[in-house]
């Protein structure tokens, strides 16, 4: 079982009832980022039409940055990173306006 904070930033909160910060508990052993992402798609995105805003070809859509405790997930092992209690996972859309 693991309990983490999941944030949806840069306007991504529209896919999770406009709530930016969520406490998420997954009652499984060895939960990695890949599992968390599928959990978000299955359990947290209420409107199934919004899943494509978050996922593309089974992974986080290009244009969304994924951060583990304020660090680019590429530096933490990406999809294979094993979640630990109290981790803060942030997803933020890249902005392009200026």
């Amino acid at each position, binding site marked *: 079982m693991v309990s983490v904070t999941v944030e949806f930033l840069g306007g991504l909160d529209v896919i999770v009832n406009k709530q930016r910060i969520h406490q998420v508990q997954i009652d499984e052993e060895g939960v990695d980022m890949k599992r968390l992402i599928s959990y978000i798609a299955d359990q947290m995105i209420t409107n199934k039409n919004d899943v494509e805003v978050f996922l593309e070809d089974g992974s986080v859509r290009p244009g969304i940055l994924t951060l583990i405790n304020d660090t*680019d997930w590429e530096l933490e092992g990406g999809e294979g990173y094993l979640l630990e209690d109290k981790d803060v996972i942030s997803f933020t859309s890249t902005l392009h306006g200026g």
Partner: protein
Amino acid sequence: MEASEELRKELTALKLENARLHRELQNREREQEKRYPLSLEEFRRYGRQMIVEDTGGVSGQIKLRNAKVLVVGAGGLGCPVLPYLAGAGVGVIGIVDNDVVDTSNLHRQVLHNSTTVGMLKCESARRVLNKLNPFVEVRTHPVRLSNANAFEIFEFYDIILDATDTPLTRYLISDVAVNLGKTVVSASGLGTEGQLCILNYNNEGPCYRCFYPKPPTPTSVTSCQEGGVIGPCIGLVGTMMAVETLKLILGEYEKIGFQPFLKTYSGFPEQVLRTFRMRGKQSNCACCGQTPTVTRESIESGLIDYDAFCGSRNYDVCTSEERITVEKFEREYRTRSDSNYILLDVRPRHHYKISHLSDSHNVTVKELRDMDGELEKLQAHIPNISKDSEVVVMCRYGNDSRLATRLLIDRFGIPSVKDISGGLFKYIDKVDPSIPKY
């Protein structure tokens, strides 16, 4: 005429004296310049920043004077960056922008004003900067940045600031800067949020493609025109760009070491600035990696096609029979007394609240899509709608309304649906200018 002869002699003597004094003054000024690297006026002007120790005093000020910075975009980000750079005494400031000032820019693009509406933004900005600091040279480039002109423009400058508003230009700026070995300060914003990073720092740091090897799907890209933007929020991010630019010029990162980062700012509900630690240069990066394919040659030849790479949203989903002009809408629907049709406005609710046509119904494209073609769900919003209804669809500019028209015909099975070409704003322009545009 003794008296005038006297006067003439006196005048000649005064002229000689005048010339002598001019020479002496010039000599003294030259001496002064030899003694001090800045003019007395420059000391007065930059004194308050020179006495901040972090700037390195006079030597820092000379670094600023020798710096050449290019700002691409004189909009919401460029407007705060430019006067701060000029005020600080950055020697040469270039501005690339081919757009003209519009009234709808003024709430955030505070270098421009009501009297410069219609003027090129780079020209409007230059006028302000020239008045702000005559020691700074401002060069304007009133062109749209492209594969063909980017290298030529960038070459002259030391640091490039990306204050643009599309993914396309963001890739182009980063790619060209990497190929010319220049550091980029890149920022963006939308709504109440902004992001900031430094790219290709000293040819050691990651570039835009390291962060974003794949472009975002075009449907996920929102512009300020569509999504709106709060002036001081984007302004703050632009101001942060100016801070980073000064730090680069003054060599701050040489002292503290550069760690790749992305800063995110949110203005609402709480003001929060966060710094994320980011990946470094990627060895497999198409531009700055070990075997780059994005080279000067491939960019300038047009082989790198940014339009195709970034793609665009396809709104071209209606036949010409499925679309009507605003004039035809007015003539055959709006003012026909026996007309019995349903007018559907598919803009977001908060847009609709600003202004809309009477007797219209507001259901957004997203809501229509989420109904999965179930007519009962649509009837919850518009009770008298049926498969036999005559429906006319409008949005702001006539893009979303085409997507909605397609949905209504194909998913809901309503055969008689027409899209109003050009949307509400075209209707306002051509038919009823008394309705507010925003």
